[in-house]
């Protein structure tokens, strides 16, 4: 993998590396996340955080960065990109209840839409999503891979309360709410699996580049499992390897 590295200042102590013109954002998610973790480890004396989003990596410095730091980091990234990376990731099966009590926004949307409620869910269950990145809230997953016909526009005014475990669609992304919070995405289902636990380290078990498949469960099954949510309910998974 080879690309141009452009550094842009963001405030005094952050630098943005712009990837917009370099890489296909959907293909290299796992690679980008490994790059960020490795960068943070390698330069822990000067970097306090490394974050990637859709088309850029942001380096947060502990100190005021200078040209020497930029040069060092840029050389290191070039070497990383030329080294073959074997990356292990998981495919997770997440049980979701699509009962109408949990999918009220989908009911409303399907009334004014070409796609019916039933066919939306059946198409949704055929998808394999990719964990893109965390954002918005601790452990809030942005999942990519939603086909165009299943995109739902964000609500003009966010709901004041969205329940933890809510599976929701915002434009082209699917998200899972880790905690109760306000939210403007469309609620289509509910899972009893928690993607964030502050008692665990790491507190989130999924990594960018992981795959997620949703499995439909009944309301009865959801209710029988929901009480176990505090017992570290980690879903089923199988691992796979990606080589860059």
């Amino acid at each position: 993998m080879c690309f141009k590295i452009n550094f842009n200042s963001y405030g005094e102590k952050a630098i943005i590396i712009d990837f917009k013109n370099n890489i296909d954002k959907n293909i290299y998610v796992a690679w980008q996340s490994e790059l960020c973790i490795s960068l943070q480890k390698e330069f822990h004396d000067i970097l306090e955080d490394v974050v990637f989003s859709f088309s850029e990596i942001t380096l947060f410095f502990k100190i005021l960065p200078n040209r020497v730091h930029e040069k060092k980091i840029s050389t290191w990234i070039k070497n990383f990109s030329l080294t073959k990376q074997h990356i292990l990731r998981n495919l997770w099966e997440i049980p979701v209840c699509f009962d109408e009590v949990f999918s009220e926004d989908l009911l409303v949307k399907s009334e004014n839409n070409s796609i019916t409620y039933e066919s939306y869910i059946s198409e949704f269950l055929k998808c394999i999503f990719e964990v893109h990145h965390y954002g918005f809230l601790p452990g809030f997953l942005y999942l990519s891979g939603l086909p165009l016909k299943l995109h739902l526009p964000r609500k003009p005014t966010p709901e004041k309360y969205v329940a933890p475990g809510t599976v929701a669609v915002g434009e082209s992304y699917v998200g899972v709410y880790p905690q109760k919070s306000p939210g403007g995405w469309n609620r289509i289902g509910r899972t009893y699996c928690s993607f964030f636990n502050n008692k665990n380290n790491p507190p989130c078990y999924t990594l960018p580049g992981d795959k997620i498949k949703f499995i439909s469960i009944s309301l009865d099954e959801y209710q029988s499992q929901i009480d176990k949510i505090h017992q570290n309910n980690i879903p089923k998974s199988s691992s796979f390897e990606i080589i860059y």
Partner: protein
Amino acid sequence: MKSFIKIIDPGFHTSIQDNGRYGYRRLGFPVSGPMDKYSFTTANKLVGNFKDEAVLETTFKGPKLLFSGPCVVAVSGAIIPIFKNDENIELNKPFFCDLGDVLELGVVENGFRNYISFSGGLCQNKIFGSYSQYYPISENGTITKGQNIKIKGGVTYKNKIKNELNNLSFDSKLKVFEGPYWNNLENELKNKILNTEFKIGSNDRMAYRLSGGVLENKISSFSASVMPGTVQLTPKGDLIVVMRDGQVTGGYPRILQLTENSQSLLSQFRTGKVISFEISEYDKSHQ
């Protein structure tokens, strides 16, 4: 033996804050830490803490605390009445508290937030590398009535206050750097932003909303990293300033970035206050 403080009354919104939680932004953790870093650092220096130790950050109305042992204490930030038992205490001046002493802060007279520092710092429930309270990473988002909070103690202090440890002056002109999106804006919009007086709307530790000019726009932006002090422009034309407990990514264009001192200043302002922006150049001298 470690001493502790007992919370008799938590005040309006009081939380434990150290310098913040770093290394976890990629999991969606906000950095947390003090809203007014300037006053936070001042408060720590006053009690002889060489590093940025954990303090209490109070908002609007301060707490009432009972001490179980000896400790040097200082209060920085907003102008606020401070009482140790019945004795009036000055802002930005360290004082001694011992078993049975009660410290009480009133309601702010000018400013919004205060920092109460303790020699050695607070040491209650460090999680993911930080004492800063942020729910649901920590069990609670604020201190609670009846809670006991441990103090490290054991630091001697010199009662010498330097002149530079005075408050920031509450100037309503906030210094900013150009944000990543700034140069994509049309000149007309740039000028409008720099010549508009914005009114502070709803605000908390996550964000400050500002409204003012007619800045309606049709910019579509992608979700990208934001950090405390980032000014985002919404399609309706309001501004959202990300604060300490704010999201790590945001979907609106990042037009400006507040300097660290401007972030401290903004966090001393509340709803209704009018502010404006002034562009600062990056200091390239260190390069």
